């Protein structure tokens, strides 16, 4: 069984939970940017959390199936069209052989997920099917989907769940405003008090320069302490001697536009990380469309860990449905 891609959409890639364990050699974790939505889609079609799905960005693919296929679409609010007729998202759908699936214009959010019963069956590379396009690794030939691709689907691994739909209370919101919780560090001491204040008290707007590597914001800018740059650091005050980057870390190259690194970001470099978006909020960031008005709120490690527990409980609730 396979999906035949008639039109690929802007950026459609195979993604799973990510490629964990190679960050130290420069291979990012990758994986679906909005894990919660991707997992909900897998749940609905009787997959495990580990199966690969298609991540669609802003515009979806047009594809046909060559056999009866069980699917679910979750994530950003998008019209799901089977042979031109609209069907609900967040719900299991049955396609017949020869059916065409396509998507309308997004009503909110940025990324949506298509899970297929049996999972997308591209080969695993370093333990994951996730596409890391810059490294030409994983997914289908290490790249985004293109017209004419035939995407293999695996054999079902489990029974279909009784539940056919993710209840409203477990679906995320896709809003035009966003609060992201961050923890300060490691280099916030290079900001002035005013620079720190602006980051967490002013509003920042997500720009269209936002992809799987990083999401760039515009706003009032920050201020750096003027210092004599150490040997090995660049001349700009936002430069440091190279260091490892955490997923979610916030850099402000030149001091004007903060960039939050996401799952396909490089693992190190020479920009000061003034803070890090907490892991529980990385899915929220992945849901944001350009223009989303964003506030960064500083939290403690205890609050970040509590948020992580709450996220885990939410995921467990989806899997227990």
């Amino acid at each position, binding site marked *: 069984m396979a999906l035949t891609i008639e039109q690929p959409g*802007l*950026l459609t890639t195979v993604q799973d939970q990510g490629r964990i364990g190679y960050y130290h050699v420069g291979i990012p974790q990758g994986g679906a940017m909005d894990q919660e939505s991707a997992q909900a889609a897998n749940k609905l079609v009787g997959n495990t959390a580990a199966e690969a799905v298609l991540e669609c*960005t*802003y*515009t979806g693919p047009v594809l046909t199936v060559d056999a009866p296929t069980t699917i679910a679409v979750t994530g950003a609010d998008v019209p799901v069209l089977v042979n031109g007729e609209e069907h609900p998202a967040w719900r299991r759908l049955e396609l017949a052989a020869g059916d065409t699936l396509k998507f309308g*214009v*997004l*009503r909110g959010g*940025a990324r949506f997920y298509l899970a297929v019963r049996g999972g997308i069956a591209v080969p695993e590379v370093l333990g994951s099917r996730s596409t890391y396009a810059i490294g030409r690794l994983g997914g289908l030939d290490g790249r985004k989907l293109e017209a004419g691709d035939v995407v293999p689907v695996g054999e079902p691994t489990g029974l279909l769940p009784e539940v056919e739909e993710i209840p409203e209370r477990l679906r995320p919101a896709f809003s035009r405003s966003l609060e992201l919780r961050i923890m300060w560090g490691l280099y916030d001491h290079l900001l002035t008090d005013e620079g720190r204040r602006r980051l967490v008290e002013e509003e920042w707007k997500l720009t*269209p*320069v*936002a*992809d799987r590597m990083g999401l760039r914001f515009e706003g009032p800018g920050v201020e750096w302490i003027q210092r004599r740059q150490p040997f090995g650091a660049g001349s700009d005050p936002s430069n440091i001697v190279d260091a490892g980057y955490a997923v979610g870390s916030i850099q402000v190259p030149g001091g004007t536009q903060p960039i939050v690194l996401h799952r396909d970001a490089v693992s190190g470099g020479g920009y000061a990380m003034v803070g890090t978006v907490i892991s529980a909020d990385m899915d929220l960031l992945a849901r944001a*469309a*350009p*223009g989303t008005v964003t506030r960064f709120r500083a939290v403690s490690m205890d609050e970040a860990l509590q948020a992580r527990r709450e996220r885990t409980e939410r995921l467990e609730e989806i899997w227990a449905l």
Partner: protein
Amino acid sequence: MAEIQSPLPGVFYRRPSPDKDPFVRDGDPVETDQVIGLIEVMKQFSEVRSDAAGTLQAFEVEDGDMVNPGDVIAVVAEG
């Protein structure tokens, strides 16, 4: 009257490059599938095509403006 909607969020451009003429001007004839602008998002430029044939009546967004999915970019008088 046909409204050409943006399929994408991003920055709308009316020219193929800053030193070139616009793809189409108000009052010009347009064909179905003719490119009328570009949208830049994620460092990629995607073409915006007219889904109607007729006369391009007016652009509803300025060159360089942010657009959201579903925003009306231009209006085409069909025929």
